[in-house]
């Protein structure tokens, strides 16, 4: 270990985050490696190591001959201070080498409020922030993940974006890079060639122009770059890479367990949900393969907890069969199994009891809205009756704690809808009173509301976020109507949700605000220790950018969006149709009940999707 590093580690919190050396961390011989890749997660180790996508890409790239992929996370504030003071540049956890000398620096973008951390990591690495100021072929700054579906707020900083699932396209980019290096291409030559790879968006090859009213006029592709870049998907999900042998951190992380990925995509079509649209089409993994992967992962890691991961676990057709198989192994081996993302409407007693058999955990439902009308408008096909039935089942099975998640500020929401949340919580409480076997123990019903953030590539991408004053009024209204000691009400902070709304649908002009805020000290905006709303408002003012233009404005049907250069496979016509149906409170059946023609099936061979 580096001597200076050894000197500063005793002074920082949780130093095990900064050392590497965990079980299954990949250490290669530098002499046998010609491509060095820094896979960066712009948040703490505990959060980044909990991300399955990071583990998949780490595994995929390290399986490549001659490629060494290392992990980089955002050092916490105390560590950053020490690193800057001692002049330690950002390093890869596996080798301890400075990443400024690597060939690739790849960022996983999962949350808009991590954008300042992306800039901070580049700076800690000792690199210029802007793509145009990094002249050489390497290091190339790459970014992917859900936020890349609107790449524009980070366009000036990133050399190329990877849209969609990275398993295959990351390898293609590395192959092209090797060719470029061998033939001594310039960075521009490389980027121009990379733009021909499906799924690669090179922001410097697009010129943004604006109308007088501030809306985009066009995103003009240069040098033959494609007008629209369509995301990549893994076609054969059964045989795509899964990290059975994966790093086991030596210190506790957020999701410290085996994660099994059941399927990608979602059949539901909730109109607010970006993941629900962006990860289409549905592709499932065979239960026999999952069973094998689950058992092998537990054996290899020594984890005694396993969770099933997907956007909606109960929509996995062979779920019962899979659970039976897993439990048959888990029970004698004392491994507990948890099933997140169960829908409130088909929560089954049998499934619950079998899982409970190993260990009982809390129960969470997300009705999202308080009235049936609004739930229909957002296409969250959960009925009050279904939810209460599930709760009764749970309560009679001995559960005494339920979490209910809602959003405030959804399109078409009225005060009646807001108060419907309090009513629903009260009905859940009554359901507990009627069904609990042990009334003396009491019940905890936790109601949480988030502030709705309109996202690109959803039916609500045209919507304005309600104003902050209005959101806070609705929170207050709801708070005043929440009764009973058993019901606890939490609401999400308004300021971060407002910024999230700006960045989610921001264009290139927002980039300068992010840079300005970072220069004034913004980082870790997702953390109360780092976030400073006034600093952000000052940055908007300095740059002459009106945040409300991005967050609160309702867009015209045909407005050019910054993210129109990217496609997730779902057509804009379909999304507009879904928006109109929202305003009529008409539901759209899930993909299994009937295809609604979103267009994502075109990403599959023969246009056949496995909903």
């Amino acid at each position, binding site marked *: 270990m580096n001597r200076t590093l050894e000197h500063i*580690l005793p002074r920082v919190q949780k*130093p095990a985050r*900064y050392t590497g050396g965990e079980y299954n961390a990949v250490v290669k011989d530098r002499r046998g490696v010609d491509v060095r890749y820094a896979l960066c997660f712009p948040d703490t180790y505990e959060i980044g190591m909990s991300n399955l996508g990071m583990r998949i890409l780490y595994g995929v790239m390290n399986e490549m001959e001659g490629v060494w992929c290392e992990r980089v996370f955002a050092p916490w504030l105390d560590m950053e201070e020490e690193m800057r003071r001692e002049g330690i540049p950002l390093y890869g956890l596996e080798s301890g080498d400075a990443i400024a000398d690597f060939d690739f620096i790849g960022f996983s973008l999962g949350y808009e409020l991590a954008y300042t951390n992306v800039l901070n990591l580049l700076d800690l690495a000792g690199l210029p922030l802007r793509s145009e100021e990094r002249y050489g072929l390497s290091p190339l700054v790459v970014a992917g993940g859900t936020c890349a579906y609107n790449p524009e707020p980070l366009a000036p900083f990133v050399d190329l974006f990877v849209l969609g699932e990275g398993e295959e396209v990351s390898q293609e980019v590395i192959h092209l890079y090797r060719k470029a290096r061998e033939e001594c291409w310039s960075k521009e030559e490389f980027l121009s060639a990379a733009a021909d790879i499906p799924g690669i968006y090179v922001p410097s090859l697009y010129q943004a122009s604006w109308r007088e009213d501030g809306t985009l006029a066009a995103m003009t592709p240069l040098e033959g770059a494609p007008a629209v870049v369509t995301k990549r998907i893994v076609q054969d999900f059964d045989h795509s890479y899964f990290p059975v042998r994966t790093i*086991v951190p030596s210190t506790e992380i957020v999701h410290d367990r085996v994660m099994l990925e059941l399927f990608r995509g979602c059949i539901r079509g909730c109109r607010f949900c970006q993941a629900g649209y962006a990860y289409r089409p549905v592709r499932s993994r065979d239960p026999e393969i999952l069973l094998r992967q689950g058992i092998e992962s537990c*054996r290899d890691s020594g984890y005694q907890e396993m969770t099933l991961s997907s956007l909606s676990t109960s929509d996995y057709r062979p779920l019962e069969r899979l659970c039976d198989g897993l439990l048959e192994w888990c029970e004698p081996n004392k491994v507990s199994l948890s099933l997140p993302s169960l829908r409130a409407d088909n929560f089954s007693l049998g499934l619950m009891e079998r899982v409970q058999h190993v260990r009982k955990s809390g129960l969470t439902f997300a009705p999202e809205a308080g009235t049936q009308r609004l739930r229909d408008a957002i296409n969250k096909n959960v009925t009050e009756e279904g939810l209460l039935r599930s709760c009764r089942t749970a309560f009679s099975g001995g559960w005494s704690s339920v979490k209910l998640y809602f959003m405030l500020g959804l399109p078409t929401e009225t005060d009646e809808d807001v108060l419907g949340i309090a009513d629903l919580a009260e009905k859940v409480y009554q359901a507990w009173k009627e069904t609990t076997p042990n009334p003396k123990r009491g019940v905890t019903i936790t109601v949480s509301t988030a502030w709705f953030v309109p996202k690109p590539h959803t039916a609500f991408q045209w919507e304005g976020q309600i104003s902050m004053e209005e959101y806070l009024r609705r929170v207050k209204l709801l708070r005043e109507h929440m009764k009973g000691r058993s019901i606890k009400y939490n609401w999400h902070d308004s300021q971060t949700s407002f910024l999230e709304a700006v960045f989610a649908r921001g264009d290139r002009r927002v980039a300068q605000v992010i840079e300005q805020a970072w220069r004034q000290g913004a980082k870790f905006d997702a953390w109360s220790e780092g976030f400073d709303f006034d600093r952000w408002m000052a940055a908007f003012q300095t740059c002459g950018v009106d945040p409300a233009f991005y967050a609160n404005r309702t867009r015209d049907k045909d407005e050019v969006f910054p993210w129109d250069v990217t496609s997730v496979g779902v057509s804009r016509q379909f999304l507009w149709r879904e928006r109109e149906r929202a305003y009529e409170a008409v539901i759209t059946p899930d993909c299994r009940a009937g295809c609604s023609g979103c267009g994502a099936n075109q990403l599959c061979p023969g246009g056949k999707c496995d909903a």
Partner: protein
Amino acid sequence: MHRVAFSKADTAKFISHLDLMRTFQRSFLRAGISIKHTEGFNPHAFVSIPLPLSVGFSSACEVLECQVLNLPLEEVPARLNAALPAGITVHRCYEGVRPVKELCYVNYIVTMEYEAGAPFGAESAIRDLLARECLVMEKHSKKAKSGKVEVDLIPLIHRATVEERRDTIALDLILRAQNPGLNPELVVEAIRTHCPDAAPDFVSFHRRAVLDENLQNWE
């Protein structure tokens, strides 16, 4: 009761005591070694480490107690070493005979580094300090109301050798292990307090041996 003797070095120095226990529990599973579990609703592996090591310290003489159920003990080290993270090395697994209460002393090597070389007179100042009749320091205490308690270090220091090299001063300390024990960090703090000119820029701590009453290795 079985004992696993291991060392902790390099990156593993920064694994905390609780994380280390978890790491061992998982490593036993990875290695296919069954160990005795607690009974009850949520059974967990029954492992303990008698003298927890401070974060950042290296050690050549750590001991973990457990009960191996399915293997000859001599197979344990190789299997565990293949399953442990970098920096933790198991040397031996054996039937523990001597009770933990016979573990009386710990031998630490404390290396104090000076960027500009060891200051003139520092070595003798430290030697004099540790040769005092009594040396009272304040230390944190969870029990005391004020959160602090005063301790006299001298009775807890069995032997102290001070040796100066070019830019370091090494302390070879034999300290009481328990009831009460003495953390060598407190010795360094005493040096910083009473011999400010000898205050080091950086200190590293290494646990070299655990000893019984007669200063023989405790196993």
